[in-house]
């Protein structure tokens, strides 16, 4: 009897402890934290447009090329607090200075538990602009969000600063040399004129 009681107690304790041992976060399996995580992303933008508050999140916080990622978008009406129930269209375009390519459709998403989820995989790193579009009461809503894929390019600012400094220093040096040369020539001419006037230089 004592063994049965111990056995039953152990079973109850094991059952109680089981959810804590499983690798779940709020019921969602945590095997792919990158694109389906409940941990807060670093990349989160909150904004408002027209009558809507819009929150945009990117998972993972710093997506890399070739890795799947996800955008979560929440839109709630500012006055009523009601979530938007229509569909949201996601497009992407290259944000490079000379990247004039046409926007590409990522997908059209209905709400899933008041969240519009859009997955993505980028093959190349760079700066992109994600556009979320929806319509409410006949009014179009267009929201652009920046998205960086991969590490920001470190060459850009360092190169620009280095070239700017080099140009400034070289230009200043050249101007100064020219100025010193001009001063020397002027001084020589002055001396020449002075000696000519005093007759000392005349043969």
């Amino acid at each position, binding site marked *: 009897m004592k063994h049965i009681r111990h056995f039953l107690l152990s079973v109850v304790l094991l059952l109680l402890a089981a959810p804590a041992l499983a690798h779940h976060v709020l019921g969602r399996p945590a095997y792919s934290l990158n694109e389906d995580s409940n*941990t*807060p*992303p*670093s990349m989160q*933008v909150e*904004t*408002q*447009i*027209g009558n809507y*508050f819009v929150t945009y999140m990117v998972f993972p*916080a*710093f997506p890399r090329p070739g890795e799947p990622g996800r955008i979560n978008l929440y839109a709630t009406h*500012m006055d009523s607090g009601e979530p938007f129930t229509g569909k949201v269209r996601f497009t992407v375009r290259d944000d490079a200075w000379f990247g004039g390519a046409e926007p590409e459709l990522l997908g059209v998403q209905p709400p899933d538990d008041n969240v519009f989820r859009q997955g993505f995989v980028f093959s190349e790193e760079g700066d992109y602009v994600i556009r979320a579009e929806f319509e409410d009461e006949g009014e179009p809503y267009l*929201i*652009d969000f920046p998205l960086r894929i991969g*590490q*920001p390019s*470190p060459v850009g*600012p*360092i190169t620009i*600063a280095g070239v*700017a*400094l080099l140009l*400034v*220093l070289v*230009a*200043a*040096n050249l*101007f*100064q040399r020219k*100025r*010193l040369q001009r001063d020397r020539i002027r001084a020589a001419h002055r001396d020449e004129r002075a000696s000519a006037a005093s007759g000392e230089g005349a043969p």
Partner: protein
Amino acid sequence: MIMTHPGLPASWGMAVIAGMVVLTLWAVVSPLPGSAGATVYNLTRAPLLRGLVRYLVSSPRILLVLKLVFVALFLLVIYAGLFGNQIPERNIATVLTWNIWWAGLIFSVFFLGTAWCAVCPWDAMAQWLVRRRLWKRAEPNNSLNLRVPRMLRNTWPALLMFIALTWLELGLGITTDPYATAVVALLMVVLATTSLAIYERNAFCRFFCPVGRTVGFYSQLAPVELRPIDTQTCADCTSLACYHGNEETEPCPTWLVMGRLKQNSYCTSCGNCVRSCPHDNVAWRLRSPSVEAVQDARPRHDEAWFMIGLLALTGFHGLSMMPFWETWMSNVARVLNDSGQLLLSFTVGMFGSMAAVVAVYALFVLFTRWLVGRETPFRRQFATLAFVSLPLAFAYHMAHNLNHLVREGVGVGKVFENPLGTGMAPLSMMEKHARHFEMLISQDALFAIQAGLMVFGFWIAVQIVRHRGRKLLLAEGVRVGGGWRLTPMLGFVVLMTAFHLWLLSQPMIMRM
């Protein structure tokens, strides 16, 4: 979820208000003061410090070592910002720049005046690049040595740069962006170097640098100054080595003549004057922190605008970190149909709040003018009384930054262990909560210091109103007993201190 720091408790607020009431009553009732000679203490006469102070200021090597340290840290900030983890609380670029340097700089002014300018890495790098010397005088100095255009020879460029920096900091949010922080750091080096390569002396420090001018004006309230030991020696001096330099030492970078120096505003504490003076007549002195703003500094119109700009921008800093600011911006954005980062709404809010402070100040000057007299031009009265904004801005700036330093400076050690934040994840809510309670000093001590700073600022502002007001009254031919005529300016001091006190008593949004 937004984390907030608790505001100053009502009990401390009441204590500050009680202090304000007592000081205001005293200021209204008591007769206006005469001009008194300032008490100063020459540090080269201090029995134990004498040798150390002399060595520190006369040896360029100490300064060079400090510059090397700060330049190394600065380069680390740039490297970490560009190449490191972009999570702001894990990257040394954002933590060191905004949580430690930007928040702590103001305290260095409180104790050491413009000492920061002497070790500033922007200027040090510019000097090394252009002069190609580590410390000795470069001749020729490799600069075009052009005169700064007349329209730029004032504090307007620095004020505009300061407004731009505030916009980048609070509007664009570079304080939480390591990459942007590094880019701005690089930009400042490029600007300082370009200015040094084109214009004579350190035009950047004197006219353009927003940090240098802020430090300079606040240092009017610092307890230290670099001044002649004997003014007669300066009066008899024919070499003006402090201004021109000598064979070894560069001239004064900001065109100051030691014999005529009355205010710290443009001194960069570089020590060139100390090293070049043939009479060994320049030394560091201790003084009352109020003496310069109260009576020594000369009023100038552009400087007045800078000081009022400081007051407006420090208040705005606090305002933009209040939880209700978001709601305000949201309402403005709805009116303007703004979206995205709401930069347009932020810009409107920022300039609106600045304009409000300027308008309120101008209004109170007008009230004062109405009572004091109209002989002196409004422009002159505006410039003379603008000194009151310095202690108000300085005191609130310190009290506000103390929150950042004490509550957000906790994780600094860890950032130094891994400056690039390699492999680090964002702070979890639990870590944020833990940091929230791990403060550098106790919360009670923090509140006490904040309250003390508010009373300190108020007290000096009242002194400025009384001293500067007395001069205005004398200029108008009003007998000195008419101190009650300055009541509107006292009202301005009370109003601004009350506004700052209210800001301090609100919960403040945690930066990172």
